[in-house]
């Protein structure tokens, strides 16, 4: 068994300096970085930093405006909105992490199969991808919720199913363009089998763009979860999700604007943050991806 030589990267992986310096120069990227850090910290440390138990009822103090005690006021059941907002970040990132990981893994697999495998398989998979993407996302989500009942798991399933075609298509394009790359042809001429080629050569070059696309998908996933929860079809109460906070706020919009602000603001900050950061990273690593996303 010959010792493995280092696989030459077909796309350049930027080092520390090429990554961080342009990142710090771009004001939008910096803002994104700060916001993302904020959200991630709040999600990770949530149980430790919430001033109150997010589910603790205190009906006497319902619908209060923000004050020293309650930074964002209280909701219709007297629960501290600020605490609920912080806990909400946990749900948002949890859904994003789980669904995007699974979807990218599956998308990677299917994409490699489609791009590198036989033509009939490619055609089959393409038709499958196009079909899933032909459903308007919310319609599809509502259909699945109708069949499976609303829950966090259902949301995750929906996100996975609708994300796979996008990732798979991207991986497929990369795999296709590399399939006929001279380096790969040389390897095959030397007798390298498909699994080896896929693992050592295709994979390293495909993973990079996939990671970028996946991270740019985070705001989309957070939005889907919040949207479904807003409709009451996602996370089940009393779990605090930004969507459910928004829903509460919407019901009581004429009583107090603060619930709506509290539910919407973190959503806006999260989506903006991840988008700014994601775009900056994409522009650094592989500006050609602009065409895909």
């Amino acid at each position, binding site marked *: 068994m010959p010792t493995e030589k280092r696989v030459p990267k077909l796309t350049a992986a930027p080092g520390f300096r090429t990554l961080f310096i342009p990142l710090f120069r771009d004001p939008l990227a910096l803002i994104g970085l700060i916001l993302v850090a904020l959200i991630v910290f709040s999600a990770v440390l949530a149980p430790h930093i919430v001033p109150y138990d997010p589910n603790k009822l205190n009906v006497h103090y319902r619908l209060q405006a923000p004050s020293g005690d309650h930074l964002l006021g209280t909701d219709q059941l007297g629960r501290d909105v600020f605490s609920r907002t912080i806990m909400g970040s946990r749900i948002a990132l949890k859904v994003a992490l789980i669904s995007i990981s699974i979807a990218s893994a599956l998308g990677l697999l299917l994409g490699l199969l489609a791009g590198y495998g036989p033509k009939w398989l490619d055609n089959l998979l393409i038709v499958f991808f196009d*079909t899933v993407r032909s459903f308007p996302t919310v319609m599809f989500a*509502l259909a699945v919720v109708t069949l499976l009942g609303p829950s966090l798991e259902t949301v995750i399933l929906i996100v996975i199913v609708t994300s796979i075609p996008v990732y798979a298509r991207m991986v497929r394009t990369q795999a296709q363009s590399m399939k006929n790359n001279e380096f790969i042809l040389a390897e095959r001429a030397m007798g390298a089998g498909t699994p080896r080629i896929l693992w050592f050569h295709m994979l390293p070059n495909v993973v990079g763009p996939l990671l970028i696309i996946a991270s740019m998908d985070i705001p989309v996933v957070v939005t889907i979860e919040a949207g479904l929860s807003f409709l009451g079809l996602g996370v089940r109460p009393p779990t605090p999700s930004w969507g459910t906070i928004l829903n509460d706020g919407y019901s009581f919009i004429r009583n107090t604007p603060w619930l709506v602000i509290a539910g919407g603001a973190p959503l806006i900050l999260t989506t903006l943050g991840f988008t700014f950061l994601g775009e900056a990273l994409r522009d650094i690593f592989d500006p050609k991806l602009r065409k895909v996303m």
Partner: protein
Amino acid sequence: MWIYLLKRIGLAAIIVVIAVSMLFTMIHMVPGDPLSVLLGPRATPELKAALAERMGLDKPFAVQLVTFFLNVLRGDLGIDVFSERSVAIIVFEQLPFTMVLIIFAITWSVALGIPLGCYSAIHRNSFLDKLTGIFSVGTIAVPSFVVAIYSLLIFAVALKWLPAIGAGKEGNLLSQLEHLVLPALAVGLGWVGYIARLVRASMLEVLGENHIRTARAFGLPERSIIYSYALRLAILPTVALLGVGIGNMLSGAVFAEIVFARPGIGKLIYDAVITRNYPVVMGSVIVTTVLFVICTTIADLVAAALDPRIRENL
């Protein structure tokens, strides 16, 4: 051109067939008997029997699928459990409201997005260009239902400039327009940014191409070069994008209709989901999916009409 047309429509038809089959299969994959799934817990025995007969539940799956298809093609999307009216009629009654909303949203976002993108490309790195850039990224990121709720809060509840609820008085155009403003704003806002960015990028790319240099070398007026030559090419990705955009806007419209309590497919399907009115849910999904496929197909055909090179590719 005709060959491309046929091929593209053929592809669309295949996708529709598979999509509808997927929906049908999904119904059957759910645990429990399909009748209860389709009709929900409120189904009376009579309804169940009638449906069983129509669907031919004792027959093999493949036959059921074909029957389902034939029914759909005939326009039979089932019966609404509650009102016992045809689902197809119910859905098509509500569709126009949603279409109006989407058309308004697309119109204003294109009307604002294309000129912004064009200007940004021509006056690169100007103040307006940079501003448009930030605005674009910002609005693309923010979810449309958040925009909907916030604009409801600000313009309807707090400032009371615009109405909060409904579609306006029947027959009163002004009232209806008034009620369209905020929902169309919510649905279209993200798209202004998307379109502006796309047009800007396409324009810059096209303006850098050799044939534009040739056009200038032939002394063609700059206006002519930008609008007839560059923009015509740069618009292509936008046209294709709009096809997909309609599907996205459908999602946005669902939320807008719910937030602003407007009639339309969104409200219809939402109410149906809550009340477990499966036939209406399925019927709505089928109709909107077919609509979506039609829109993307038309968008691709328009793009092929504009760029002869695309026709060679399918």
